[in-house]
């Protein structure tokens, strides 16, 4: 077995019905499990950015990226290792405020994990934590003693560490936006 690690695949595509299925079918056909996926429209109307993470090896990722490029609605695709990227995720924690013994220290913990309070109720608080997967799981461990009622994590978002911009990725599209 080749050494596996997390790769991030960034796909820019048309924002269109069915495109996600075409994309994920290329992963499932190769028995690749998608660890996380984040999709949203970019600053350019009609273009979506998909950030997909998989656990795999270099060769598989290289071939996969080339196969994704063959989807007609896809503009560009890049495969990255973690070191190429600035990575972030967002998590929301619904934490109980009922644990009186620890009640006083909750504030300190929230400060320590650099989270933001989104909602404050008598019985619970919803806090937001943004950071890497590791930072979020550290926050989870810190908050666990208070009683986590509910927890949700977004998929990864990531940007490449260089001066390239999305418009640099999509020069051809610029020319054709008229139609």
């Amino acid at each position, binding site marked *: 077995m080749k050494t596996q690690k997390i790769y991030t695949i960034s796909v820019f*595509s*048309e924002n269109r*019905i*069915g495109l996600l*299925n*075409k994309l994920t*079918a*290329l992963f499932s*056909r190769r028995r690749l499990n998608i660890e996380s996926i984040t999709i949203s429209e970019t600053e350019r109307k009609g273009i979506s950015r998909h950030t997909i993470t998989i656990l795999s090896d270099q060769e598989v990722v*290289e*071939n996969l990226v*080339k*196969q994704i*490029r*063959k989807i*007609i*609605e*896809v*503009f560009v695709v890049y495969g990255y290792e973690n070191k190429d990227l600035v990575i972030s995720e967002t998590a929301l924690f619904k934490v109980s405020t009922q644990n009186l013994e620890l009640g006083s220290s909750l504030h300190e913990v929230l400060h320590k994990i650099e989270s933001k309070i989104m909602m404050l109720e008598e019985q619970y608080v919803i806090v937001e934590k943004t950071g890497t997967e590791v930072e979020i799981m550290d926050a989870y461990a810190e908050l666990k003693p208070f009683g986590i009622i509910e927890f949700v994590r977004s998929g990864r978002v990531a940007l490449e560490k260089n001066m390239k911009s999305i418009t640099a990725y999509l020069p*051809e*599209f610029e*020319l*054709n936006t008229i139609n």
Partner: protein
Amino acid sequence: MKITETLNTTKNKAAQGAGSEQAITGAEAIMRCLVEEGTETIFGYPGGAIMPVYDALYDYMDRINHILVRHEQGAAHAAQGYARVSGKAGVCLVTSGPGATNLVTGIADALMDSTPMICIVGQVKDTLLGTDAFQEADVMNITSPITKWNFQITRADEIPEVMAKAYYIATSGRPGPVFIDVTKNAQQDKMTKPFVYKKCKQLANYHPRLVPKPDQVSEAAKLINAAKKPYLFVGHGVLIAKAEEELMTFAEKSGIPVASTLLGLSAFPVDHPLYVGMLGMHGNYGSNVLINEADLIIALGMRFDDRVTGELSKFAINAKIVHIDIDPAEINKIVKADAPVVGDAKEAVKALLPLVDKKEHTAWLNQFKELNKLEYEKVIKAEILPHADGAITMGEVINLLSEKTKGTATIIADVGQHQMISARYYNFAQTDGWVTSGGMGTMGFALPAAFGVKVAKPKREAIAVIGDGCFQMTIQELGTIAQSKLPVKIIILNNNYLGMVRQWQELFFNNRYSFVELQNPDFVAISKGFGIFGEKVATREELEGALERMLESDVPYLLDVTVLKQHNVFPMIASGSGVSEMRLE
């Protein structure tokens, strides 16, 4: 009287104006698109959700020839046959639900074998989508992984642009099937704007590279000029790019031995001194064994299918690889390329030609000839010139057919032993002489593909070579052939077995013949029932005369040839073996 006439004239003018200026229905727009793209023949089958288009077709019968198949799979394979020899997109027209799902095998086959095809498919009206309506199937998701592109049209106005895109995508770059799902309302509704057709020439996000990068070409040329034992593999890409002439010039200048993949057959004449044989599991002996002696392999428009490489770790062990392909995703997919060249085969060879040295590789070439002589002695002789009192062999039939047609027919072979034998023993002298289902290995492909070929090339002799198993998978298309009066010739190589599976059961499953023997109907009687003349050939004495009568016929003609019942195709690279472990017996 006079007044009435004037009135009529005005009316007629108004009617004409409506045709060209004013709104037409989506269904008619589809017809107009076909005409604009120069599609003369389509293959189809009507049904509920495509009826508006069939109604529009009624007015276009003078411009569009529609061939009514007997099963939608037949339409798909016919369109493939048409596309494979014409280079134009083959078009199918079918209804929703089962009509669409019956195309699936053909679509998958077309994707595997890079065949331009456009499937225009009816769908329930948009308001019914997702409600389990009658004959509704989620064909967009079904066909996503097996098409180059698919699109669902829900408004009549979308039709011209989407159709133009469909033709462009299907036929450009690495060709492939495109699936267009048209909801019934989009067919029935009038367009809200005048029909204007603009052929698609480029797309924002799809840029097939035709002309290769010069640095890739010069890197490849460097390796070619340095090689002592270079070896050229010719694939389907050469036929698709129509690069046969360039290939010939290149081969003759460089003096490099040429072998062909199954789908590359007929791109290079078999009797050329540089031709050393077919690659792959049942290819020629020298052409396979010497892959491991070559110090350079130039793969031109082929994709290193596992049936070509055999066990990958034992493939091309001493060779550097120049891989020329239009699809960048093929580079390094199976075999790592030392010098990848992404581009169209024709453009790539043209670019390489001035850079390669004029050379001869006589000693190297002779190595192939020696091994092929051995193959002749051990295998071929007995196959094409069998013992006079034994049964007819498949190779004997194909060899005789090859002689009678001087290698100039187009052979459309199905899948199995008869396919390998046809590939091995027909001496292809002309390009587009071979159509078969390579990547998918779809049984039942040949009969419908054969009339597709005949439509595209009416002057070519189109001969379907079919096994008795395959024949029964799409036998109903005899009806299409009869009704369309397409003079297709059909040879059934009949051993009452699923021969290739039986061969494997004999060689690798200890003679345990599990469900491979067939109780066949009387094919000649069936053929006659369809109105197609047929002859049974049971003895050697009857063979030559029957072949001659078949070839002389200007109407469809079927020969049911009884061949040796238990016979194996050799040489063979067994599953898991390397190319140099090819068995002669």
